[in-house]
């Protein structure tokens, strides 16, 4: 089977190279034969998807069968790994994740070429060549640098197992979501390059790829959210965002993608910001590749960087080509990219969108600078230095505040020029809501945290602005159709999915940032060492270490605690944080010691609520257990496995019987649940915007678009 998989990769590489040649010849060759070659290049993408699907299935089947003759299976899975995680262990490896990347690229590219079949005909062959270029690059990596079908000979009887830290449901979906986002962002990139190369600089390439950009934004956002959730419940530090280079790598293309989704509207409606839009799309595609590079190269110190690899140079060459090619294309086509209109007024929706874009790109630049600062510092001063979360917060907090405020201004300010009457009519309620919220919270004592207070006020402003738009739209529809309010609201959203889906996203962002602001500003956290029976007080809660727990499962030893949580003497909840110790594969560490020298993961005790989360993690002190472990290792090193299992159980029982003190991290954090709820609202809004409009509306929209293209052609 490994031979079949390897053959598929080789074939895929050959197909990609052929497709690039056919597409470019189809774009630039003799006129009579162009269409046939371009079509052949297009079909190469579908063939690529078919061949890579076979390779993907071969490797996935090897993981599910625990076929340790595949080197990548032996080093990333084991017979004791649960089936669900076996299926997902593929992308915990370098080789498997690169195969996943190129497979998703081939699938999304196929979908894009089907959707765009009869559109942007001149640009399409170039776009196909670019997409196949990415496929050829990743195919070459799989052939020359990270072969997923390498064979172990002889095959080991047991594998190393999946990294225990990754054994969390969200972590298993997180990489495919991120990679879907990254690969989907290459589609607008490819079509933008195609449009520039073919000098088709109207908004049609945007109309074709807008939905893919939105899908990329949505899936990358889901991936980022799942990563944050995993960090919160699995990593044992109690946070959801740490400005880690790999987290930042996924956020950067999401920010520029967000900017593009907004500014694309300006180009579609008013023919403005053409250079800006094309630059944003090219930057977003490049940042998506940069994100993959950061995770896979290990160039920056990160908990996610799985050691240094040899992939850095090829990725740097690709990124260099993308940046250089993009700059050359935009510079050489600048005349055709001139805006058709000028900004009429700074008090207009166009100006608000432009400011929103500047804030998003500013955020991206700050994050880029902070992430790559160790390399910048080394290049400038000769010494590596890093900036920490306080540095990021210094810039991102004010920019995030401004961004949330703009999420409320954008939907209600008028296009072209807002008059005083328009401003008064549209902003009276939102401003009153924002000011009222600020006054209320200040009266309740929140003024000590001004950034959080401003964020709450900005969120109230956004929610009022969005609510006002829904209310006005529903009222207008009811006046025309006499529908009931729910029916009018549903019809309003159904007929204007992009607009109202966007408003829902804005409301979700406001809710999400309320959660971020509250949990950052009003959190109570404490690290405390307790023995059974002792109590500590954190954030008004009394937490009592009732008793230790010890459990032996097939794969790990779990040591934990039962914690009784009370407030004002009344029982609130009982939490059971544990720490799981997974055995090392190194037999020299002894039958018991290998558990405590292997990987450990936290299973936090969490009571989540709308008002606050009670979050607790334990770190048992194993020093008193070490002599017992060493003694057991010495005496039972050659014992039968069943005897060794009994000894391990006895060691765990001893911990429960004579528990040493344990260190607890206790966090009382308000409104964390709002982050996850806000994200769900954002996703719901994105799905509304993504959902295809009814056929009749599409026809009407495309008729309007055709009229606009005709006007543009007439002007040319």
């Amino acid at each position, binding site marked *: 089977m490994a031979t079949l998989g390897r053959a598929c990769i080789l074939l895929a590489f050959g197909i990609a190279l052929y497709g690039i040649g056919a597409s470019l010849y189809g774009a630039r060759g003799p006129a009579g034969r162009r269409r046939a070659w371009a079509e052949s290049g297009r079909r190469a993408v579908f063939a690529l998807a078919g061949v890579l699907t076979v390779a993907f299935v071969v490797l996935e089947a090897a993981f599910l069968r625990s076929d340790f003759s595949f*080197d990548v299976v032996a*080093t990333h899975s084991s017979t004791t790994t649960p089936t669900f995680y076996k299926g997902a262990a593929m992308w915990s490896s370098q080789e498997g994740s690169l195969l996943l990347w190129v497979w998703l690229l081939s699938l999304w590219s196929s979908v894009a070429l089907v959707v765009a079949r009869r559109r942007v005909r001149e640009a399409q062959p170039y776009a196909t060549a670019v997409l196949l270029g990415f496929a050829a690059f990743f195919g070459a990596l799989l052939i020359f640098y990270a072969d997923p079908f390498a064979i172990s000979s002889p095959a*080991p009887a047991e594998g190393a197992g999946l990294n225990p830290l990754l054994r969390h449901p969200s972590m298993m979906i997180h990489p495919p979501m991120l990679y879907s986002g990254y690969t989907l962002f290459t589609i607008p990139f490819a079509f933008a390059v195609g449009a520039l190369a073919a000098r088709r600089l109207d908004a049609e390439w945007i109309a074709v790829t807008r939905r893919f950009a939105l899908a990329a934004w949505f899936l990358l956002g889901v991936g980022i959210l799942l990563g944050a959730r995993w960090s919160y419940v699995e990593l*044992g530090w109690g946070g959801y965002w740490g400005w880690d280079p790999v987290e930042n790598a996924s956020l950067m293309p999401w920010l520029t993608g967000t900017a593009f989704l907004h500014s694309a509207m300006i180009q579609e409606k008013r023919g403005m910001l053409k250079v800006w839009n094309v630059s944003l799309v090219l930057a977003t595609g490049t940042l998506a590749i940069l994100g993959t590079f950061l995770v896979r190269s290990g160039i920056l110190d990160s908990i996610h*960087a799985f050691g240094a690899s040899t992939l850095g140079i090829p990725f740097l060459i690709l990124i260099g080509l993308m940046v250089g090619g993009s700059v050359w294309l935009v510079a050489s086509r600048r005349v055709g990219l001139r805006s058709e209109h000028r900004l009429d007024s700074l008090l207009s929706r166009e100006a608000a969108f432009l400011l929103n874009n500047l804030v998003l790109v500013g955020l991206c630049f700050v994050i880029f600078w902070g992430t790559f600062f160790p390399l910048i510092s080394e290049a400038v001063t000769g010494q590596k230095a890093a900036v920490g979360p306080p540095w990021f917060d210094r810039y991102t907090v004010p920019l995030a505040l401004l961004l949330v405020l703009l999420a409320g201004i954008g939907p209600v300010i008028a296009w072209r020029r807002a008059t005083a009457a328009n401003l008064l009519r549209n902003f009276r309620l939102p401003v009153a809501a924002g000011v009222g919220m600020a006054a209320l919270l200040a009266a309740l004592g929140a003024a000590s945290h001004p950034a959080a207070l401003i964020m709450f006020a900005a969120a109230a402003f956004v929610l009022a602005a969005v609510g006002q738009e829904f209310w006005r739209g529903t009222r207008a529809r009811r006046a025309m159709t006499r529908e009931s309010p729910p029916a009018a609201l549903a019809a309003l959203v159904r007929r204007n999915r992009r607009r109202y889906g966007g408003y829902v996203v804005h409301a979700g962002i406001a809710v999400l940032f309320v959660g971020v602001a509250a949990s950052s500003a009003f959190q109570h956290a404490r690290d405390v060492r307790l023995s059974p029976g002792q109590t500590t007080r954190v954030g008004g809660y009394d937490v009592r270490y009732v008793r230790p727990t010890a459990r032996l499962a097939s794969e790990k030893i779990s040591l934990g605690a039962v914690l009784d949580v009370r407030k004002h003497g009344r029982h609130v909840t009982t939490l059971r944080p544990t720490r799981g110790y997974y055995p090392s594969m190194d037999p020299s560490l002894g039958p018991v010691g290998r558990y405590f020298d292997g990987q450990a993961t936290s299973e936090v005790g969490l009571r989540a609520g709308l008002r606050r989360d009670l979050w607790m993690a334990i770190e048992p002190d194993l*020093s008193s257990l070490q002599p017992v472990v060493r003694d057991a290792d010495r005496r039972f090193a050659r014992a039968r496995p069943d005897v060794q299992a009994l000894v391990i159980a006895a060691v765990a029982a001893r911990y429960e019987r004579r528990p040493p003190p344990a*260190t607890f991290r206790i966090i009382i954090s308000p409104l964390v649940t709002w982050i996850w709820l806000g994200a769900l609202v954002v996703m719901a809004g994105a799905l509304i915007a993504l959902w295809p409009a009814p056929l009749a509306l599409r026809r009407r929209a495309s008729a309007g678009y055709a009229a606009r293209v005709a006007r543009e052609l007439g002007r040319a």
Partner: protein
Amino acid sequence: MDPHRKRTIRLAVALSAAVLLAGALIYTSFSAATAARTPSQLARQASPGRSYQLTGKVVTGSIHHEGAVLLFRVRDRTGSTSVPVRYAGAVPDPFRDGREIIVDVRRQGTTFVGERDSLVTKCPSKFSASKRPGAA
């Protein structure tokens, strides 16, 4: 006002703001950055009170608890020179003897005191894509 002049003024204001912000970014990043150092570099020269980013491996058998404070030694990735570290705060799950870590520290006497919650442990090499002997 003449529209061309208006646009020029807007562009000048925007560019000035961008230059100012970029200047602030560069200045603050260089002044707030924590220099990355190995244990042998810190052992040779470390100014008291200044923050450093210490990178290295946890010395086997050196981890001890003193209340909620964690005591351990960090050695060079390839070498035996080590420095003592006192740390309080979140301890990442992969933290263990022999693991590669990064922690922000300040010198206090002969010990290096870790900044709260700054400890990062890299994933163990067991889970990296290392080749097994005999792999085809």
